[in-house]
């Protein structure tokens, strides 16, 4: 079966194709060369339409314990957003913390074909994978979280050599079936258990005597040396604290040229100027990002309305708990491996702080020059549910719309920003970089995010519309692995995506000390901790895609 998409306007940044009219041929789920005899089985006329690869959300909380806690804690989020079953789709519910099924359908309807869960706790990885396994259509993968686990901190306190840490990291990525490594409030989740309520970059964990800077250094080196393509995914110290901009600048310095991805940077870009002692640090942060080519960021834009914040950072979530809306929250330890905090939140446009957060996010988008190193996220659901992406794209692409929105916000906050003077408008090509080619490159997906021959046929086709929100919320066609899954913004076929993983090598000798550690301290046996490949494949609905490693080795 050969399908031809005729005459579309191709936006494929991975091949430097900016609005190039060409045909695409699809066979067996892949993009292929034009057949020699020119024969095609089916042809779709897409002349004049905008064609991009399927979008990739490289940071979205769609699985794992904390999402389930949010679901359990917020029945109102479900009761007010009930989705009935259809002949094709199963029922579901939820706005900020949608059910797994609804998550998959909604992503596909917006032209997304992959989403990556950024906080998979090793001990909870099975749960995360089972939820993602139940998320239809899109591809998925997880970044496994280390940095506050006692095994690593013990090794660091004992000054173990980098080789041992590399082995531990590679072992964990393998057996948690992850595609990358994440660190959340490095060491802070652990320090919280020793009654520390804040932890700066150079502050020692009282028990282990280890600083966040050490942890970042060790882990980012490990990721680089074992050849995992996705750089260390860092949720830094002091999230949400006024003045944390300095911590973030120090963190960028501390990377010392090693690749590092700073996630939801908006929450880490706050100054302390002005009457409210809260100001934008976006300009300084953007300047530092522009200068340090090893740094990538995603924004974590906030948008106004009700959502829920779900994070592994129980230290900062505990501090944020008094602001919960509705007034209920959870902070908990997860089997001494890490932590978790879930705080429902309503961002208000007439709140000075929330309005400024909105502006800081947009300032960051507009002041970071290289779209290959900044990614479009709302840190779903922490800044806003992912369903608001089309609105966010419009804010980026339409200056007058942005300024109209800006003028309705808290008046003091408007005075505290230069946002209105920023003229930049993202082009379709830049959006394609941010949400497709760049994201695929960052996560390390060799066969996604581009439209070259050999790529998986994850393709989204839009009708060009100057109202970018309308354009991006309802693609004409979405193909997932060559199958038409969405037509005119409606799911027409339900498929099941693959799980992307990497398999870095490690020395099995690490299992000797791990075995001892599991037997002595853990709630499960080491053999049970390991997630086998066939668990992901399950009944054949799931599948594993092992992405290639970079060339690793000592720095």
């Amino acid at each position, binding site marked *: 079966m050969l399908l031809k998409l005729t005459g579309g306007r191709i936006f494929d940044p991975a091949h430097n194709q900016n609005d190039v009219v060409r045909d695409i041929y699809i066979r067996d789920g892949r993009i292929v060369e034009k057949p020699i005899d020119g024969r095609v089985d089916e042809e779709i006329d897409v002349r004049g339409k905008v064609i991009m690869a399927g979008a990739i959300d490289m940071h979205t909380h769609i699985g794992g314990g904390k999402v389930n806690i949010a679901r359990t804690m917020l*029945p109102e989020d479900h009761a007010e957003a009930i989705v009935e079953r259809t002949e094709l789709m199963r029922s579901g519910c939820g706005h900020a913390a949608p059910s797994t099924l609804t998550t998959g359908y909604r992503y596909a309807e917006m032209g997304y074909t992959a989403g990556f869960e950024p906080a998979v706790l090793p001990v909870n990885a099975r749960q995360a994978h089972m939820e993602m396994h139940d998320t239809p259509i899109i591809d998925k993968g997880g970044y496994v979280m280390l940095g506050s686990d006692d095994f690593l901190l013990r090794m660091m306190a004992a000054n173990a050599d980098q080789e041992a840490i590399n082995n531990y990291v590679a072992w964990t990525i393998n057996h948690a079936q992850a595609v990358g490594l994440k660190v959340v409030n490095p060491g802070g989740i652990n320090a919280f258990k020793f009654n520390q309520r804040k932890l700066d970059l150079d502050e020692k964990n009282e028990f282990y005597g280890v600083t966040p800077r050490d942890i970042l250094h060790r882990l980012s080196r490990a990721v680089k040396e074992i050849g995992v393509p996705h750089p260390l995914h860092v949720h830094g110290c002091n999230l949400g604290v006024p003045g944390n901009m300095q911590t973030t600048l120090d963190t960028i310095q501390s990377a010392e040229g090693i690749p590092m991805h700073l996630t939801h940077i908006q929450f880490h870009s706050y100054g302390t100027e002005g009457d409210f002692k809260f100001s934008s640090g976006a300009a300084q942060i953007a300047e530092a990002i522009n200068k340090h080519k090893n740094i990538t960021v995603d924004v974590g834009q906030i948008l106004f309305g009700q959502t829920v914040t779900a994070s592994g950072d129980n230290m900062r979530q505990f501090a944020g708990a008094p602001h919960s809306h509705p007034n*209920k929250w959870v902070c908990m330890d997860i089997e001494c491996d890490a932590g978790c905090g879930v705080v429902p939140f309503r961002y208000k446009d007439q709140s000075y702080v929330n309005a400024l957060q909105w502006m800081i996010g947009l300032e960051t988008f507009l002041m970071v020059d290289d779209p290959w190193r900044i990614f479009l996220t709302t840190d779903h659901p922490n800044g806003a549910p992912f369903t608001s992406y089309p609105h966010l794209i419009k804010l980026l692409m339409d200056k007058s719309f942005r300024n109209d929105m800006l003028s309705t916000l808290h008046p003091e906050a408007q005075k505290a920003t230069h946002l209105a003077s920023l003229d930049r408008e993202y082009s379709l090509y830049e959006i394609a970089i941010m949400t497709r080619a760049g994201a695929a490159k960052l996560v390390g997906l060799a066969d996604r995010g581009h439209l070259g021959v050999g790529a998986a046929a994850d393709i989204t086709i839009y009708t060009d519309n100057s109202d970018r929100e309308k354009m991006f919320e309802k693609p004409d066609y979405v193909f997932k692995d060559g199958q038409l899954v969405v037509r005119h913004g409606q799911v027409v076929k339900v498929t099941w995506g693959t799980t992307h993983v990497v398999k870095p090598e490690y020395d099995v000798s690490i299992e000797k000390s791990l075995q001892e550690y599991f037997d002595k301290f853990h709630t499960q046996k080491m053999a049970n901790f390991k997630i086998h490949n066939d668990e992901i494949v399950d009944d054949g609905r799931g599948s594993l895609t092992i992405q290639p490693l970079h060339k690793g080795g000592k720095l």
Partner: protein
Amino acid sequence: MSALTLKLKVELQQRLDCSPLTADKLAGKSPADIAAIELVSGRLSIPVAELFEISGEDITDIRFENSSAKLDHIGHAMSHGRITINGDAGAYLGQFMSGGQIEITGNTFIYTGCEMKGGQIKINGNAGDFVGAARSGYKNGMTGGTIIVSGNTGQRTGDHMRRGMILIEGNAGDYCGSRMVSGTIAVLGDVGKHLGYAMKRGTLLLTKMPKYGISANFNDCGSHTLAFLPLMFASFKKLDSQFAHIDSFSRVQRYAGDIGGIGMGEILVKI
């Protein structure tokens, strides 16, 4: 105009969602329209006419005859009008109602008056668990209105209750007034175990000492003469209830709690 009367004529296999049958939702509908409304029962949708014999047309005065405990959601979110039920009603009677009156001759089951905002429910039989409570996971139960129960209530009466009154002429089950945020519950009969468990604010008024005593989480604040009690009893005079005929009193023993939380609730026991 005579009351819109719905007489159940079938033996229901599954529970029936009666939420479309309120004055608000029937406004502007002819008897033929009403007969054609589809009600959800289990996995089926069944027209009203197949379930009920319909007579009368006054939608502000709805009568359920031959009612059964399988009829759920009667009076859902109603804001005005009157519903009279001969027989039992199922779960969620008067959920979200903001005005009007419901009277039932028989018993009601779980979540009677769940999150109601106003109006009055009079139950001549017994009520189930969670009278005037919040749905599971929600923060506020009933926020206004009055529920009168001539019989007994089940467990967790007034769970998360925020405002309004629950008047029980019989006995209340275990955990009466649990997690109450505010409002008033008065009981003429006995109360079960764990009275006022995790209560924040609000008043539990009893005419006799609880059979299982007062929990250790309540402080005995001594005896008081409270002037508001006779005023409150006077306000009951207009109710169709034993509470209208209660001998007014103002001397009570006061217990404050639950001191496991903010401890601003009170249990008042007549002395």
